[in-house]
Every structure is written in structure tokens, then in C-alpha cells.
């Protein structure tokens, strides 16, 4: 059965494609079922618990604040430094403020938030659900009459949809502040002047672009992380594979989705 050369390649490609389609369908089902429980759970006497949602919001959102603040600040500062260095040749270094304001709110604020959440929660969620899967805890939920998606996925989805926009606002602010500190030193302007310039450049559409992306990222992160958890098999090694796969796929999904989004929003 050793297929070689082109046949082997096309066979692998086909299998990969089939797996991709399968994963996509699985994610869509997961999303549909989560939304079902969020909307109709109470009516079915299976409500999505507020307590569980708050707990997830803490894990996913609040605990990510320190790391996210530092990363966003650093990123804003780097953009300012690179921008000023590049634009200096044209004598247009003060234009850096426009660049920072729009690119951070449209693009990088939400991207950094997404990557931080993917790194922290993408692995943690997959590991938690994967462990439960292997210890038959998911089966235990099902035979107890508790829908695993309602109990485990729906609270995460709600938490992501609340926390991703919130974290994006924080990330935007910290990145702009980071850019401001560098501008203060390099362009010799006050922070007040800098912020005034930023606000005069920004339009509601810029902010909206980042916010809408953050919701899409939240959904993607939930589905990829929980999906990888549910499908984990093969003991400790399998769990390691599932968490790694989860983080890699989370970040890839975010970046690719971001590109597609930007393409349609700008062009």
C-alpha cells in the first residue's frame, strides 16, 4: 500500500483537505449547539450558569490584563520607533501619530489581544477539556443528563464575546500610550498634544473595525480550543499534542481571519 511520488502527495493532500472540512463542520456544529443553549437553555431547564460565565471571564479576560498591557504597550512603542526612523528620511516623522492611531485600532490592538488570549486560554481550555475527556468526565456529564456543550463550551463562548472587545479596548489604549511615550521623547511633544492628534485622526469606523474583529476572534478561539479538547485521545502524549495543536490553530485562525476581514473591509 506504499503510495509514492505524486500519488502519495495527492492522497495526503486529499486527506488533509477532508480533515479540514471535517474540523470546519465540527466547529460549526459546536457553535450552533452553544448558541442554542445560550438562547434556549433556560427554557429547556438547562440554563448556562452565570457563575460559570463569570469564572471563565476571570480566567480568559481579567487574568490576561497584565500580560496584555505590557505586550500592547511595547508594541505601540516599537511601532512609533520604527515609524519615526522610517519617516525621518522624508521629514514626515510627525505623521507617525496617524499611522499608530489607525493601525492600532484597526489591526494590531485586536491582534495582540487575540494572540495573548490564544496563548493563555487556547492551551488551558484544550488541556482542561482534553483531561476531562480522557477521565470519562465528559461521558459522566452526558449520562447525568448534562449536555457537555452547554456546561463547558457555552460559558466560554459568552466569556469570549464579552472579554475580547473589552481586552481590545485595553490593548488599543495601551498601544497608543506606548506610541505616545516614544513620541514624547523623540518628537518633543506633550502627551496631551499627542492624544489630541490621535483623537482628531480616529474615526468611529476604525474602532468599529477592531471591535467586530474581536468578536470573530472570540468565536474562533472558543471553537478551536474546545474542539481540540473534545477530540483529544491517546493519554498524556495525546493531551500534549492536543494543546499544542490548539494554540497553533488558534493563532493561525486569528491571523488568517484577520487578513480576510481586512481585505473585505478595506478593499
Amino acid at each position: 500500500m506504499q503510495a509514492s511520488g505524486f500519488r502519495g502527495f495527492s492522497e495526503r493532500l486529499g486527506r488533509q483537505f477532508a480533515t479540514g472540512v471535517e474540523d470546519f463542520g465540527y466547529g460549526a456544529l459546536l457553535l450552533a449547539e452553544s448558541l442554542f443553549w445560550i438562547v434556549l437553555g433556560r427554557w429547556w431547564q438547562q440554563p448556562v450558569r452565570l457563575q460559570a460565565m463569570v469564572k471563565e471571564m476571570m480566567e480568559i479576560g481579567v487574568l490576561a490584563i497584565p500580560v496584555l498591557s505590557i505586550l500592547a504597550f511595547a508594541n505601540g512603542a516599537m511601532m512609533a520607533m520604527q515609524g519615526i526612523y522610517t519617516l525621518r528620511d522624508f521629514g514626515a516623522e510627525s505623521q507617525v501619530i496617524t499611522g499608530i492611531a489607525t493601525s492600532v485600532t484597526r489591526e494590531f490592538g485586536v491582534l495582540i489581544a487575540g494572540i495573548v488570549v490564544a496563548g493563555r486560554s487556547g492551551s488551558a481550555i484544550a488541556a482542561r477539556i482534553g483531561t476531562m475527556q480522557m477521565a470519562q468526565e465528559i461521558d459522566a456529564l452526558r449520562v447525568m443528563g448534562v449536555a457537555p456543550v452547554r456546561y463547558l463550551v457555552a460559558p466560554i463562548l459568552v466569556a469570549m464575546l464579552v472579554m475580547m472587545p473589552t481586552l481590545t479596548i485595553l490593548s488599543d489604549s495601551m498601544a497608543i500610550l506606548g506610541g505616545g511615550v516614544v513620541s514624547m521623547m523623540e518628537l518633543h511633544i506633550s502627551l496631551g498634544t499627542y492624544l489630541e492628534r490621535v483623537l482628531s485622526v480616529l474615526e468611529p469606523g476604525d474602532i468599529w473595525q477592531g471591535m467586530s474583529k474581536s468578536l470573530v476572534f472570540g468565536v474562533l478561539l472558543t471553537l478551536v480550543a474546545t474542539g481540540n479538547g473534545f477530540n483529544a485521545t491517546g493519554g498524556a502524549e495525546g493531551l500534549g499534542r492536543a494543546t499544542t495543536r490548539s494554540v497553533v490553530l488558534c493563532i493561525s485562525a486569528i491571523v488568517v481571519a484577520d487578513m480576510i476581514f481586512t481585505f473585505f473591509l478595506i478593499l
Partner: protein
Amino acid sequence: MMTAMAQQADRPVIEVENLVTYYGRQKVLDDVSLSIAEGEIMVIMGGSGSGKSTLLRYLLGLHRPDNGVIRLFGRDINKLSGRDWMALRKKMGVAFQGGALFNSMTVGENVRMPLHEHTHLDENTMRIMSRMKLEVVNLAGFEHLMPSQLSGGMLKRAALARALVMDPSLLFFDEPSAGLDPVVAADLDKLILRIRDAMQVSIVVVTHELQSAFDIADRITVLDQGRILMVGSVDEVRNSDIPRVRNLLSRTSEEQIVNADEYLQRLTGSVD
């Protein structure tokens, strides 16, 4: 006791008819039919790979049968709506092999969890109810421990308490004695008998331990390579003259009939 059981036996709690299941292309269960009466302890016995765990998963409704019919409490599980399933599950308790307690909760929270999800009782009542069940399994006072702090036998008993907390009329127990020393295993067997006598409950036990099966069973189903070898009382199984049952009882290794052609084909790995 036994006659009382026999009289109630007219309406089976579980009926399985001609169940055939596959794992990939491999047949796991082959034409399995069986029925379990009310108040009965049915032990499903078989070696590893006999299909007993698979059968249990189907009985629990974790898989839907493609071929054959499974009826729980007289209702075909393939025809149940999601909502009916949930109602039905409240009447079933399951103690999994490794306990399957939720690791992030204490023992007490684990036992209270079905009450939390399915009832509107106040916290205090739930606490009392969960303590009652923990008393039954001799785990009173351990409710504040985490599952990782329990021994193997205690884990199984805690799982049993969680399975009992909704007062089910059907209880499943997967490998109660696996991984336990003989004394603890015997204690658990006694506990199962006590629960059957104290509560009106039918019990399905899946095990590979002979002694345990003989001690607790009203009837035993012997599974081998996905087929039912026999269903009968403890004595009937003990005195069976079916060779494979005898092998299982006397723990002689099974001699597979060697087919020279097949053997060669396996070795050379030629694909058909």
C-alpha cells in the same frame, strides 16, 4: 428475596435486540440480545476485548445503535427526543470505572452536582441529601476532600454516591473491583447488594472478576468476542458445559484454532 424479584420481572428495564456494532470495519458486538428485569442485578462478564465495555456504552446511550434495538424502560432509545433523553437520564445512575469525578470539585460538590443541575432544592437540602448518600457508601466526613486525595476504592464509592444521589431506578457500575485489593473489592460487592436491598433499583455490573460476579449476580451474561455465550443464574454459569465458558471459569488460556493459510497471510501482510 429471589422470588419477589422474579415476580417483578415481567416488565424488563432494559431490552436489547439483535445489537450489532462496528468499530471501523471491525465487528465489536455481534447479534447481542438481552433483557434485564426490574430489581435484578445483572452482571455482564467477559474478558478484555469481549465487547462488554462497548455494550455498556450503548446501554448508557453514549452511542446510538445502527443495527438492532435498545429499549430503556420500554422506550426505543433511537426514537427518543433530546428532552425525553434528559428525563430518562435522571432515572439512571452510572459509576464509571475510574470514578470520573470532576477533578475541579470536592467530593461533596461532585455528589451534589446532579441535584444542582436537575432540581431547585435549596443548598442546605442538597447538602443533607449528598451526606446521606455518602453515609451509604461509608464516606461520611470526606466531602471536603478533592478527588485526587482519595484512594482507588474511595473514588469508586464516591462515584457510586454520585450515581445514587438522584435515587435512580437503574444503576450501572463499570468494573467495580478493577484495580482494588480483594478485601476492598469484597466490601464494594457487599455495598452493591446492600443498595439493591435498600432501594428499588436494577443494577447492571460490568466486570471481568469471577468472584465478584458470583457474589452479587442474580443473572450473569457471559460475553466473548462480541457474542453472548450464555445468560443464566450463577449456578447455571458455574455448571455450564460450554467449553469457552469453562475456559473463562477455570482461567485456562484459550487455544485459538490455527488456520495455516490465514496465518501465512497475516505474516506476509498481503492485502485482500
